[in-house]
């Protein structure tokens, strides 16, 4: 379990991370979602002690990362799969981790097999690896100590569709066995498919968080009518905000029952009325992040 409380990081006058608080629970995959530069990586670096927070705390099972006696056995970390010495072989990189953590030698070959790197590939230098192979190696290094918590920054980057599916199954299985997974991504569909909980961040601030099912439910209603302008006016009169979906329908945050009532009162026949789940997380993501972008960087 990971607990982040009031985490703030200032660079000069810029707030890179602004009062971020969330919990990643055991047995669940928590997706850390946000556009590039939103503060995901900075938050994760602070969690593992690579960057100092200006204020706030991050703990794993109630302890600061730096207080873990042998962190690799408790937290598997993959921050950047490309951050490896290009001259080392894949096997050597895992061997260094295995030795540092004090694990049996057999663990290296086990992990290579677990991430489907062949013995031949493992003997090659990482400089010759594709990004997808580096991600597999990085996931092997994160898992080698059999930790209870995984912190992965953009682990799906560079994986082909089969690789993404493989990683999804791996992380799903890991969480189902009681593990805690925190993974960041700007790949919305990946988060939508894999995560149980979602923490969405924009410009250093959390813009939304909760269980994926709740967040999807909050996506509002899509409504269509022959007399669209009349419907829009009627909804506005009720104090509801609407937006055009771009394909001749209206989107509103109100639920379907309320929209139906409004239409009935206004005497407008609806041609379509449904929950906006089809729009999915992507719309919400764009909406939330663009809203926080309009606010500009908080001073």
């Amino acid at each position: 379990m990971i607990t982040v409380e009031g985490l703030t990081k200032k660079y000069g006058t810029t707030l890179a991370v602004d009062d971020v608080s969330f919990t990643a629970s055991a047995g669940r995959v928590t997706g850390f979602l946000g556009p590039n530069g939103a503060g995901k990586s900075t938050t994760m670096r602070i969690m593992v002690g690579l960057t100092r927070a200006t204020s706030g705390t991050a703990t794993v099972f109630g302890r600061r990362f730096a207080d873990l006696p042998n962190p690799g056995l408790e937290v598997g970390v993959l921050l950047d799969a490309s951050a490896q010495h290009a001259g080392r072989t894949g096997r050597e990189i895992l061997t260094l981790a295995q030795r540092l953590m004090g694990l049996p030698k057999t663990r290296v070959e086990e992990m290579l097999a677990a991430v489907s790197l062949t013995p031949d590939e493992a003997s090659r230098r990482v400089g010759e690896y594709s990004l997808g192979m580096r991600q597999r190696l990085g996931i092997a290094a994160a898992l080698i100590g059999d930790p209870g918590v995984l912190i992965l920054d953009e682990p799906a980057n560079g994986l082909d569709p089969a690789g993404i599916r493989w990683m999804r199954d791996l992380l799903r299985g890991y969480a189902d066995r009681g593990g805690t997974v925190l993974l960041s991504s700007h790949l919305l569909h990946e988060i939508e498919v894999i995560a149980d909980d979602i923490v969405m961040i924009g410009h250093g601030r959390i813009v939304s968080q909760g269980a994926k099912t709740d967040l999807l439910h909050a996506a509002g209603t899509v409504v269509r009518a022959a007399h669209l302008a009349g419907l829009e006016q009627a909804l506005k009169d009720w104090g509801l905000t609407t937006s055009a979906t771009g394909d001749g329908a209206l989107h509103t945050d109100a639920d379907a029952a309320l929209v139906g009532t409004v239409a009935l009162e206004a005497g407008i026949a609806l041609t379509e009325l449904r929950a906006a789940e089809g729009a999915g997380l992507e719309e919400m993501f764009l909406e939330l992040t663009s809203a926080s972008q309009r606010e500009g960087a908080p001073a």
Partner: protein
Amino acid sequence: MTAIAVPAVQPRRTDVRTVPLSRIISVELRKMFDTRSGFWLIASIAISAVLAAAGVILFATDDELTYSTFATAIRFPVVVILPIVAILAVTGEWSQRTGLATFTMIPHRSRIIAAKAISSVVIAIAAMALTFAVGALGNLLGAAVTGTTPRWDVTITQCLYYVLGMVLSLLVGFMLGVLIRASIGAVVAYFVLTFLLPTIFSLLAAGSRWFSEVQPWVDIQFAQSGLFVFDKSLTGEQWANIAVTGTVWLVVPLLIGLRLVMRSEVK
């Protein structure tokens, strides 16, 4: 890829012990050898030692064929290469970005840096042992070629001076690595400090009587040169020169560098 051989997540471990420093040192030592560039850099110490010894046998006059000549000749390549080993051990974590993994597996940078310092000194002492051995072989071989008896004109104390001098130059490299944390910058700074600066100092000393008097207190290379001459014991003043220049050129910048390393962000 349906069967995923990742074992079950264990319940929270309670018996985890802190990673011992000895283990970090052994991993840091391994990291110095496990790349092609690292391996050949260290191999080049042995290779250049042998070449230097061969050079002495080929070109030195008969009465120069003594152990001190060999040890002095071998010193030059070794004293250039050793500090680079120490520099790269530190800067690689930043230049190659391996620090991202290293500093998360051991989230106490002081322990990693200490392990790097110790493993660099281990390499230096091993290189010294090799230097003395190659020098001894060269001396025996040289004597056999010329048909004379080998001359051992070096005392144990002088050998210890020599080792101290080597370790000090290695630590200058280490200091630059910690202070600059970028491979190319640190190597360039090292060459400026060990080759360019002494030249400037000696020009100044030649042109100014005043400077020639203070030079031993300013020029770290000049102050330490006594360690390598195999001539006589150092005087108290010479030790003081080494202490003063060592504090200014080595200890103070090292402390600044260590402070930067502890605070800097690893990206």
